[in-house]
């Protein structure tokens, strides 16, 4: 959650860079305090609940949108377990052998905030945004799940720690055995699905300002709008963490000693993890400012007619490889 302001700043700087502008540069060094100023501005704005809305759901929706993304971050192992006072301290908030399933369940929940928000707003644009969010998430969750299955088949476990450890080996001493290289198709599918699940361009059909004004958050203002905004960025961060864990070896680097539990080494692995996540986040931002938005039928075609069959084929292929 603390990452979000920095992320917004990076987003604006990168967008400026892509569009050959300067970007925020007045508040603080390099405009670094701009997100802070924005947040204060949003907090002091008038909080409008328009007439004809469903008050309860209208207020509930932003919180529902934000919670899953925040929860998702709790199952990610951020680094090598740390040895403190002779006890192994795992760098993961919520441990368990069902990590991957929990992430899938949580990404499924994130749509409710958008759908409720869109419906409760009593506005046709918001409503269409909410509907689109529902259709889009449902469609791409299938592709995401299928991509995940082939990864699980490779690792043989749904425990995120095991999946990370499974990727610590190398080929020929220097090419890491990351799932991105072992399961390239699954990686691409998962990556695209992650864009769709976080409603980032080119998949931001639920908000689509050209057609729907602001989509599901058209009627929202002040802090409630900020929560939707926060939710999008938090979801982006959580997705990048998840992709790093599942496909890019998590906190490991090729050649790292997985039995070294000294605190310094652990912190190093955390740094490695966040370096990988930062690269992914940068990619997310660059894509947003370079690609145009899909049309809704194109979106559905890509999801159902391309990604899902590819995902199924990939599972078949993985299964055949495992047998042969």
């Amino acid at each position, binding site marked *: 959650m603390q990452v979000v302001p920095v992320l917004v700043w990076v987003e604006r700087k990168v967008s400026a860079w892509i569009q050959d502008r300067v970007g925020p540069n007045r508040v603080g060094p390099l405009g670094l305090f701009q997100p802070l100023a924005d947040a204060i501005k949003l907090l002091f704005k008038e909080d409008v609940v328009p007439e004809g809305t*469903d008050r309860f*759901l209208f207020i509930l929706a932003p919180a529902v949108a934000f919670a899953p993304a925040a929860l998702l971050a709790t199952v990610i192992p951020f680094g090598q377990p740390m040895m403190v006072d002779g006890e192994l301290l795992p760098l993961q908030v919520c441990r*368990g*052998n*069902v990590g991957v*399933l*929990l992430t*899938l*369940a949580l*990404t*499924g*929940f994130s*749509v*409710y905030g958008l*759908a*409720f928000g*869109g*419906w409760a707003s009593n506005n046709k644009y918001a*409503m269409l945004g*909410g*509907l689109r969010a*529902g*259709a889009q*998430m*449902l469609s791409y*969750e299938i592709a995401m799940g299928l991509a995940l299955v082939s990864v699980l088949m490779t690792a043989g*476990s*749904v425990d995120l720690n095991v999946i990370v450890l499974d990727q610590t080996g190398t080929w020929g001493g220097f090419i890491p055995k990351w799932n991105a290289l072992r399961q390239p198709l699954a990686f691409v599918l998962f990556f695209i699905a992650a864009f769709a699940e976080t409603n980032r361009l080119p998949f931001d059909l639920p908000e689509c300002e050209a057609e729907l004004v602001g989509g599901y958050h058209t009627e929202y203002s002040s802090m409630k709008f900020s929560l939707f905004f926060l939710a999008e960025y938090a979801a982006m961060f959580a997705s990048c963490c998840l992709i790093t864990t599942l496909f890019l070896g998590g906190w490991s680097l090729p050649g790292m000693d997985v039995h070294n539990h000294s605190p310094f080494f652990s912190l190093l692995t955390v740094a490695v993890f966040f370096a990988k996540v930062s690269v992914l986040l940068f990619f997310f931002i660059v894509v947003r400012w370079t690609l145009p938005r899909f049309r*809704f*039928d194109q979106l*559905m075609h890509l999801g159902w007619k391309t990604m899902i069959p590819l995902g199924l084929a990939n599972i078949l292929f993985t299964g055949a490889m495992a047998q042969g």
Partner: protein
Amino acid sequence: MNLRDAFFVVFSFLAIFGAFLTVTRRHPMYSALSLILFFGAISGVMMVLAAPFLALMQLMVYAGAILVLFLFVIMLLSLKESELGGERPWPLKLLAGIGSTVLFGLLAAAILRAPFSPAPPVPGTFGSPDAVGTVMFSEFVLPFEVVSVLILAATMGAVILAKRHLDRPAPQADPPGGGHHG
């Protein structure tokens, strides 16, 4: 009462509360919301009862996917207050009351009479994805495959039903709303 029992009680009450709201709310949107609460609470109960795999499947499939479809239909219909229907006539209410009381009584009697013995201790991996998967694909592989064929048949049936009207030449050039979105 230990922590586990406490969680069980909390989740159970949440589930009952959610189920109650689901049937009493007038607007389907709120019924759906209550149903989410119910699914979440039931999943919590399963988690406490050492069935983490089942709990997460419950969340993923019911709360995460099926209810989104419910919401979809509710949003597309977007019922006005007048379309929701007024109060039901009292004989119907009485009948529903008697019916549910009898059902509750039968179930309660059955539960009270059942010879409950303390459950045998289970291994620590009980209910984990590993354990469920192993049992499902060894001991119960035939039922599993039969169910999968059944689901496949149902899916194909749904596709055929949905596509049937697409074969006919459309009278208008552009049907409103676009047919292929759901």
